[in-house]
């Protein structure tokens, strides 16, 4: 386990050093990532400016949700890049064969192969929005709330990471990476930036019971912000909901190992 973590860190450092060779291009990409996520924030701001509050949700409440999710999503994008490009750069080329013969876990080798450091732009943008929310909201941070927030953030990380693993796993069959799963990763991120209670019931149910997005983001955050929930969750369910993120991760990881058993090389 410790050896695994050490290996992961070393591979990551190598990937970072590689990226830093192209400093100009790197800085431009950071700026691009910052602007792309800024655009969404401008949209949210414009709507709140025009319509006032969204029920009990003020712009600061949504900023808290938005900032948290963007920070987590960017962190996942940075550290799961190897899975993101898995189909095109390891499966289609047949290079995965070489990964298989190495004496370390395929999960670590694939994960640490690349790092998307330019997503620091989105990360920074998320942090700025979160700071605004923290200043504007003045949350009463009891120990319980802080613990719930940390639990929620780590579960969110596991959730979005798991989706990247599923995307990569699909390419054992499809060879290419499927864009359609972007609706759950990027689409999920955009969905979860607003309170779940504004969506249609079938949509909310899908994102609660099939893909547990609401369990890792909306429910625990409602608990932290101590807001009433029209969907009817209680503090107990809000506190337990993030468990779903870790279960989801475990299921997706076993799907990865299942896919790997079915792997037939494409190389010649």
């Amino acid at each position, binding site marked *: 386990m410790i050896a695994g973590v050490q290996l992961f860190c070393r591979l990551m450092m190598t990937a970072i050093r590689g990226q830093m060779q192209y400093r100009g*291009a790197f800085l*431009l*990409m950071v*700026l*691009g990532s910052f*602007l*792309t996520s*800024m*655009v*969404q924030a*401008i*949209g949210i701001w*414009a*709507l709140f*400016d*025009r*319509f*006032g*509050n*969204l*029920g009990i949700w003020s712009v600061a409440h949504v900023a808290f949700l938005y900032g948290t999710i963007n920070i987590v999503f960017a962190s996942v994008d940075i550290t799961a890049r190897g899975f993101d490009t898995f189909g095109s750069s390891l499966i289609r080329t047949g290079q995965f064969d070489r990964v298989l013969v190495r004496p370390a876990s395929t999960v670590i080798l694939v994960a640490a192969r690349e790092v998307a450091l330019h997503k620091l732009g989105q990360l920074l943008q998320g942090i700025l929005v979160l700071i605004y929310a923290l200043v504007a909201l003045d949350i009463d941070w009891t120990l319980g709330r802080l613990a719930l927030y940390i639990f929620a953030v780590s579960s969110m990380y596991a959730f979005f990471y798991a989706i990247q693993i599923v995307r990569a796993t699909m390419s054992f069959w499809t060879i*290419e990476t*499927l*864009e*359609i799963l*972007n*609706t759950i990763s990027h*689409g999920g991120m*955009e*969905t979860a930036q*607003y309170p779940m209670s*504004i*969506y*249609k019931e079938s*949509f909310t149910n899908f994102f609660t019971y099939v893909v547990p997005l609401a369990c890792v983001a909306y429910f625990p955050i409602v608990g932290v912000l101590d807001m009433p929930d029209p969907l009817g969750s209680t503090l107990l369910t809000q506190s337990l909901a993030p468990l779903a993120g870790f279960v989801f991760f475990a299921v997706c990881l076993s799907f990865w190992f299942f896919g790997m058993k079915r792997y037939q090389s494409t190389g010649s």
Partner: protein
Amino acid sequence: MDGLVTAFTRSYAAVVVARFRMLLQYRAAALAGIATQIFWGCIKLMVLGAFYAVAVTTPPMTFTAIVAYVWLGQVLIGLLPWNHDPELQELFTSGGVAYELLRPLDLYWFWFARTLAYRTAPTLLRMVPGIVFAALILPLIGLPEWALPAPASMNHGLMFALSFVVTVMLSCAITILITISMFWLIEARGLSTFMYGVVPVFSGMIVPLPLFPEWMQPFLQWQPFRGLCDVPFRIYSGDIPLTMASQEIALQFAWTTILILFGYGLITRARTRLVVQGG
């Protein structure tokens, strides 16, 4: 002039056919793209619908106009000039641009034809299934309030078609400016990066422009990116009345002409001081 038009039409037809053949190889990708756009459209409508449901004062647009705006935007998203033709980028880094200069065609209009193909071919491919879903399938599955409505009237439809043609020209004129920036920058990524931030917001793709704060409206009204979404989409839904439509299209056309002349001027200057990469 006649020769120029024939050359333009023929080179355009050739590149567009080539591009279509290439795209048809990736049907699964196109389908996945459409599904993604539809999903995004639904989220946008739910978010905007939630705001409309709690609105205290009457919003500047009806919800039907919003629905038309969102779906037209999702279906035509490929026309937005926030990136540029990677094949043309390749010409600059490899030095292949020297061959382009040798062609017996006007460089600006040849690239315009290529850009037109790059912008329109994938959009045409995705447009039809997207419209079928938004206009016909949504009412069938019990969501008629989300369905893409027909144009407000026959005349609105015709004005929309006219405005849409200008939109395509405008989009190409902006895309080609990004390409031309490579004469100076080699990497167009710099300008592209900037465009990621500017184009979606100022065209109205993120939030319909009339919903932005009142104090921003005078500026939003006159800037060129508005011609990419806001003008045609609002003519379609009747949010811009027919009496105003011709004036709006004239403004859209004026910006397009200015940007084309600007690009043409830049390309003429760039040719005299071009350093070809590679060896």
